[in-house]
Structure formats: structure tokens, C-alpha cells
């Protein structure tokens, strides 16, 4: 018998190699080019470890380090305390207005930098309207400034990540597990923390890690609400923006410390998760129950209350956008002055924002499905490496990434990309992990035997993937794509380095308006961005909800 030994590279091996190449070019190369800076002396441009010595010996940095951990950890905890119950309630009980809640939770994420924090000041600052209201009735409230304010804002700003990841996972838990727990004598509460919670722990921890990493990287909130409470992010921002110019060595060094913290957290999470991989056949899915009486009222109050409170700053922004202005000053009364002023050039910026984000998200959706498969189903060193690399974009501050991109792809031999191309690529690589994380947790819950069945029926790997795996991970893909989209359309720090006059985006416009103190303009621009994004999000949820009934 002759065996034709024709070499046929296995499909997933090819995919793995392609992914590695893309990551090497778009991720590792630009970052390395910038990271070298932390080992360079700003003046002499010679090699040095002095930057690190400086960071670890000076109180200024050490305090920042402690503060960062403090608000990062508590902000994450707060996000979990809101996100997990919200996910559980919406996944297990009939809640009136569920789509509405999910949409609002997503919209919370559409808070352009700075403006949200300013909105909190307008509410809870020394002269904020809520503060004043309580003062009039004789209660003195603490102001928003300081660590507690930052933690409050982080909590309300980042809980949607925990909520979305957890909800997706909860919807895929095999119902029999919960039944069995209850049958063995668990009250619903015990059942929740003894069985359900451990089962969805991978998803929760992924959401929490995203919160933690983002809280560490967020500079707008501590910058505006800190009042002397400095975190590494504000230190890095200050170092970066200091008009000295020259090589941003300290900014990069501090960024690396931030990256190291996040990296540690991620590695810890991976360690814990390694032992916990649960799959279900998805044929015995949980059902929603109806609550009654005060429980029902309580749960509804909680769900709607959380998203409404989290939406407050956004509402304040919308409200502000309709205030009559003269220059930067609100003159009292309502008017469309702010909208009149943005009408001229906002449409271009909106078009740009959508164009770049959508282009990036299409890429992200396709690539994250493939990457997730490689990570979850293939047990090779390469898939481990990819999984690890998928954390990196979370960790690298946008500025660092953008400088790397510009030096790598605009100058020199590959200087073929215009600003638009660069923006799409940088959105793609920076937001890819959102897609991958979400899709990965979705995929982990699907039994491998389903794909095996497809392969066994003659479907080549790609086809089995498209026809069986992809439809089953659609919920994860949708959530991942949404999160990528929302975070991409709000991207500021790297856009600011790359954009040119034809490619200005909404967040840049909003940021510039804030810089000028033009809050009316910023609010109007934010409102427009919010509206456009909101429509998209709502549409996606409607679509996903309809699918809900069609399958799963």
C-alpha cells in the first residue's frame, strides 16, 4: 500500500503561526522600540538603570505606587460588588427592562475621558448641585475629591466589564449543576456562592482583571479628582506632558511599573484559572424565574438603581450640553448654542470615529474568534504564548503604544500607512484582548465533543469552526465586539499622537474642548457620541435578545 506522504500543514497550525506573526509585528516590535527608553538616560541617551533607581527610591513614586494599588484594588472590588449581583439578577430572574439595563451598562462605558469626572464634580464637588442640595437641607456631604471619590468613580465606571462577562457565563451554566446543589440542601444564596460562583469564576475574574488593569491605567479620573492624591498614571501623565520635551524616559519607566503591576495580577489570575475549566453541553440551559413581593421590588430597584446611578454623570453631561453658553461660561437657561458650534465639524469626526472603530472591530471579531480557539483548544507552547501576549495590549499605555507605532510604521521602510491605517491598526491591537477574553470564556464553556462531532462528520477544521464553534460563541463574540467597539470609539491617548486633520475623532475633539475649558462644547460632542453609540448598542442587544429565543 503506498501512502502518499504529502505534507499538509494542519489548518490550526497555520492559523497559530499567522497569529504569532501578526502579534510580533503589531505588538512586540513597536513596544520594544519604546520600552528601550526606560533604560536610557534622558540627557546623555546612554544606557542606565537610573530611571528605575529613581522610581524605587523616591517617595513621590513610591506613594504613587501605593495609591495606585489602593484605588485599583478597591475600585475593582466595588465593580465586582455591583457587577456580579447585577449579572446574576438579570441572568436568573425576569427583570422588566433587561435590554434597557444591558444597554445602559454598556453606555456607562461610553464615557469619554475627563468629561465624566468633571460631571462628578458638577454633582458632588464643593459647589456641586447635589452637595448644595444636601447643604440646604442641613446635611454636609463629603466632596468627591480624594481617594474615595476616585474609587467611587472607578466602581461605577468599570462595573459593566464584570457585569457583561459574568452574565454571559451565567447564561451558559448547565442547569443541572444548580438543581443538584439545591437538591442537596443549598438555599438559593448558598447555591449561588458554592456552585454557581465557582463555575463562573473564570469569567468574573476576567472581568475583574480588566477593571483592575483599566483602573491602574486610567489617568483622567485621578488627575481631576485626586487633589494631591497621586497615582502612577497621573505621575506618568505629568512626566509625559511636561513641556521639557526630549525623550520621555521617566514616563516610560513609570508606565513599565504600571504594566508590571497589571502583569502580575494577570499572571496570578491565569494561575488560578489553569485548574478550572468547565464545559457544558449547552443543551440544559438555566431558566429565569419570576420573583414576587418585596424581593422582586428589591431586585428591580437594585438593577435599575445601579445603572441609573452609573449613568448619572452621563446624564449631567447631556444636561450640560443643552445649557446656554457664552464663551466658556454657562449663562443660565437652555439653548442649543453648544450644538450650533459643533455642527460644522462634528459630522466629520463622528464619521472618522465610526469608520476607524468599526474597521478595527470587524478585524477584532474575526481574529479574536480564531485566537480564542487556538488558546482554548490547542495545547501547545505557541497557544500559551499567544494567551500570554493577549494580556500585553491591556497593559501598555496608549501613548507608549502610539509612539512605538509612529516610530515603527510611519518612518522608515514601512512608512506606508497613513494616519487612518495607523489608527485602525492601533485600535485593532489595543482592543483585541477584549474580544479575545470574552470569546475565550464563552468557548471554554462549550464541550469539545461538539467540534469533534463536526470534524467527524467531514467538516474540515475551518468549516467545523465556522459552522459549529462560531454560532455557539456568538454571545461571547457579541459582548467582546461591543466592548472592543466601545473602548475603541473612546480611544484618546494614542489617537492624539497619530491623528491628522483628516482623521480627527470625537474623543480628540472632546479632549481639546476640555483643554480649552469649553465644557458646553465637550458636553455636546459627548452627547452626540453617546447617542450614536447608544443606538448601535441597543440594536446589538435587540439582535442578541432575539437570537436568545432562537437558540441557546
Amino acid at each position, binding site marked *: 500500500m503506498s501512502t502518499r506522504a504529502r505534507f499538509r500543514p494542519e489548518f490550526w497550525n497555520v492559523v497559530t503561526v499567522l497569529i504569532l506573526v501578526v502579534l510580533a509585528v503589531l505588538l512586540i516590535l513597536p513596544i520594544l522600540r519604546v520600552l528601550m527608553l526606560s533604560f536610557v538616560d534622558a540627557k546623555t541617551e546612554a544606557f542606565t538603570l537610573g530611571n528605575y533607581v529613581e522610581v524605587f527610591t523616591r517617595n513621590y513614586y513610591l506613594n504613587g505606587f501605593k495609591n495606585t494599588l489602593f484605588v485599583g484594588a478597591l475600585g475593582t472590588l466595588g465593580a465586582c460588588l455591583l457587577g456580579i449581583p447585577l449579572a446574576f439578577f438579570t441572568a436568573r430572574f425576569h427583570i422588566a427592562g433587561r435590554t434597557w439595563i444591558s444597554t445602559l451598562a454598556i453606555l456607562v462605558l461610553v464615557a469619554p475621558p475627563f468629561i465624566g469626572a468633571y460631571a462628578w464634580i458638577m454633582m458632588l464637588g464643593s459647589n456641586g448641585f447635589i452637595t448644595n442640595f444636601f447643604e440646604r437641607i442641613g446635611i454636609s456631604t463629603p466632596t468627591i475629591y480624594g481617594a474615595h471619590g476616585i474609587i467611587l468613580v472607578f466602581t461605577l465606571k468599570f462595573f459593566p466589564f464584570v457585569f457583561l462577562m459574568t452574565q454571559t457565563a451565567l447564561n451558559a451554566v448547565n442547569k443541572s449543576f444548580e438543581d*443538584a446543589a439545591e437538591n442537596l440542601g443549598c*438555599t438559593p444564596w448558598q447555591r449561588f456562592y458554592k*456552585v454557581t460562583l465557582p463555575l463562573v469564576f473564570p469569567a468574573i475574574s476576567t472581568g475583574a482583571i480588566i477593571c483592575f488593569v483599566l483602573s491602574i491605567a486610567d489617568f483622567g479620573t485621578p488627575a481631576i479628582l485626586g487633589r494631591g492624591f497621586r497615582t502612577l498614571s497621573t505621575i506618568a501623565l505629568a512626566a509625559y506632558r511636561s513641556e521639557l520635551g526630549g525623550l520621555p524616559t521617566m514616563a516610560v519607566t513609570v508606565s513599565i511599573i504600571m504594566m508590571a503591576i497589571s502583569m502580575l495580577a494577570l499572571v496570578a489570575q491565569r494561575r488560578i484559572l489553569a485548574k478550572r475549566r468547565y464545559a457544558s453541553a449547552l443543551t440544559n440551559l438555566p431558566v429565569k424565574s419570576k420573583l414576587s413581593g418585596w424581593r422582586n421590588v428589591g431586585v428591580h430597584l437594585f438593577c435599575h438603581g445601579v445603572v441609573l446611578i452609573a449613568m448619572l454623570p452621563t446624564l449631567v453631561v447631556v444636561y450640560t450640553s443643552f445649557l446656554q453658553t457664552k464663551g466658556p461660561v454657562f449663562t443660565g437657561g437652555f439653548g442649543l448654542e453648544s450644538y450650533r458650534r459643533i455642527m460644522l465639524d462634528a459630522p466629520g469626526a463622528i464619521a472618522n470615529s465610526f469608520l476607524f472603530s468599526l474597521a478595527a472591530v470587524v478585524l477584532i471579531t474575526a481574529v479574536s474568534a480564531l485566537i480564542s480557539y487556538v488558546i482554548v483548544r490547542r495545547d501547545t507552547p505557541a497557544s500559551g504564548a499567544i494567551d500570554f501576549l493577549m494580556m500585553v495590549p491591556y497593559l501598555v499605555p496608549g501613548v507608549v503604544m502610539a509612539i512605538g507605532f509612529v516610530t515603527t510604521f510611519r518612518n522608515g521602510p514601512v512608512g506606508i500607512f497613513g494616519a487612518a491605517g495607523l489608527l485602525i491598526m492601533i485600535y485593532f491591537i489595543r482592543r483585541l484582548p477584549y474580544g479575545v477574553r470574552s470569546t475565550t470564556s464563552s468557548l471554554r464553556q462549550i464541550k469539545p465533543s461538539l467540534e469533534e462531532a463536526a470534524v467527524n462528520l467531514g467538516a474540515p477544521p475551518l468549516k467545523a469552526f465556522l459552522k459549529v464553534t462560531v454560532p455557539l460563541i456568538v454571545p461571547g463574540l457579541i459582548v467582546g465586539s461591543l466592548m472592543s467597539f466601545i473602548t475603541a470609539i473612546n480611544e484618546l491617548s494614542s489617537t492624539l499622537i497619530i491623528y491628522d486633520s483628516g482623521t480627527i475623532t470625537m474623543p480628540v475633539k472632546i479632549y481639546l474642548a476640555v483643554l480649552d475649558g469649553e465644557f458646553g462644547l465637550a458636553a455636546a460632542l459627548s452627547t452626540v457620541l453617546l447617542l450614536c453609540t447608544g443606538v448601535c448598542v441597543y440594536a446589538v442587544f435587540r439582535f442578541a435578545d432575539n437570537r436568545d429565543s432562537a437558540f441557546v
Partner: protein
Amino acid sequence: MASVEISALRKLYGDVVALSDINITIPSGSFYTLLGPSGCGKTTLLRTIAGFHSQNSGSIKVDGASIESLPAYRRDVGMVFQDYAIFPHLSVRDNVAFGLKQRKVGSADIARRVKDVLEVVQLGSFADRMPHELSGGQQQRVGLARAIVIEPKVLLMDEPLSNLDAKLRVDLRAELRRIQRELGITTIYVTHDQEEALAMSDTVCVMYGGVIQQATSPLEIYLKPANRFVASFVGANNFLSVGRDGGSAALRSGGADVSAMLPGSDAAVACAIRPEALRVVPGQAAADPASIAIPANLREVSFIGREMEVFATTETGETLKAVARPDPAVVDLPEGSPVTFTAPRSDLLFFEDNETGKRIA
């Protein structure tokens, strides 16, 4: 120790009627089996008793007290799940200990009871494995151990042995029955295996299409099936049509006169004969007066261990199947050989000729 009483229970999934008008009384400590084909509503009934979904109407009482309003976790009803439902994040030991911890049993006591029950299900050396390292049958045994270790008032088992091999199944069957007797746990057992049902149960309840067909002792079910469905389901699966002409009645195949056994109605009737009641002899043969004889042509003889299965076709095209101790004179016959089936008249059963037709006289 508790009696269970179910009355007028009804359960719909959307439009699908999964259970319609279920009435059941289970004495304290007895072993009650739900037997029926796939999709007949057995799992649904168990899950309703366990409290995982609520019925559309009807009531369930344990020891005379209605339990509808009790949440599932307070019903003290143990359950072995058809899809195992082993907690994937806990080791075998912790899975089994789960319910005991829930009941605040002391840890030394837990260790001992878990060890004992794992021995019973022959998983003593697997205590520290995680569920994904177990085969399907091993997982099912963990589920069984987890449910019996808590010694609940009522134990529900959803085909707990279906994935086990015959030997282990028979062993565990006896073991289950022993444990159940010892503890006196009222047990509701779901199976689609009639042999299992007949061997283990105090009462067998045959279901079909969400309706109870008959609920009585195994012997009664076997000897006096209430309708054609029950008869066929517990193994009487030769059905022969009966020709009627005024007061006289005769089997169409072979023509044996059965008028004496059929009161004078004119409704269509089928005659059922168990495969093990049929004897097979090669060639033509006449029957003694207490028996009937049916000539047929051999189609297939298959060997299933200690018995042979003989399939043959009568001249009117009906199929007959006999199960008997292997007889070389029959096993060696070529396909198509003439054979004669005989059966004692006392072993014939008559039913109205439709799927769930009543037994006559």
C-alpha cells in the same frame, strides 16, 4: 421514611403536555419505579417532585403535607441526575461531601460516611480525582453516591444505572436495593429498562405520553398488563391479529380458535404472546388441546448469551419472536425452514387493537 402522594398533577412545556393527570400513592419506605419509553415524561415528573419546576396544576404531598410551597432546597428529596450534574469544580470527595456539609455534619463523620459510600459505588480509590478525569460511568456513580450519602426522606433516581456495564449494574442494583431497604428511604426510580424495573421495585408504574398506563406490583404488571402498551413494553411483543366472525374468533396466523377466551364483542382485537412463552420446533407440528400452534418460516436465529432469539414469519406475514434456551435442532436450521411455534393457551393475552387498547377479560 415518608409517604408520597401525587394527585391530578399536570405539567406543560409551552404547548407540549409532558404530564397529564398523574395520580400516584407511594407508601412510606417503598421502592417505586417509573418505567416508560424515552420522552414519556419520567424526568419531568421527578423534577416536579424535586421542585425544580412547578406544576401547572395538581398537588404533591409528602407525609400528608403538601410540599408545593417548599423551595427545592428544603424538600429533603435526594436526586440522582440523568446527566450526572457532578460539580466540575469539586473533587469526587467534595462532591459527595457537599450535601453533608450542607447539613452541618461533623467533619470526622463526613470523612467516614464519604469513604463508606465511595466503597459502595466502587470508587474508593478515586476520591481525589476531579470529575473531568472520570469516565461517564464513573461520573454517574459519583452522582449516586452524592445522593444516597445524605439519607434523604425521599430519594429520586433518574436512570442512575443507565451508563454502567451489565455486571456493575446488576451489582449496584442489588446494592441500591439493600441500602434502600436498610435505610427505609422511600425511593422513586426512573428507568426505561423493564428488567431493572421488575427486579427492583415494590411497585412499577408504566408511563406513556405523559399518562400513567398502569401502576401495580411487578408480578401483576407482568402477568396482567392493563393494556396493550404495557404488555408490549414489559416484553410481550408478539402481537397477532384476531379474525372475528360473529361469535367465533380465530388467530389469522395458524387459525387457532380462540372464541372461548373472547366474550362476544365485535371490536378489533389483538392477541399478545410473550417471546418466552413460545416454543419452537422444526417442521410441522400439531398442538395439544391446551396449546395453540402457529406454522411459520424461519428468518433469523440470534444468540444472546444464555438464550437464543428466533424470528420467523407466519404465512400471513406476521412476525413472531421466541426466546428460549438454545436448541441445536433450531439453531442449525437454514433461513426459510418451516418451523412451528406453540404456546399454552393460558399464556395468551387479548387487547383492544390500538396502541393503548385495554386488556379484554
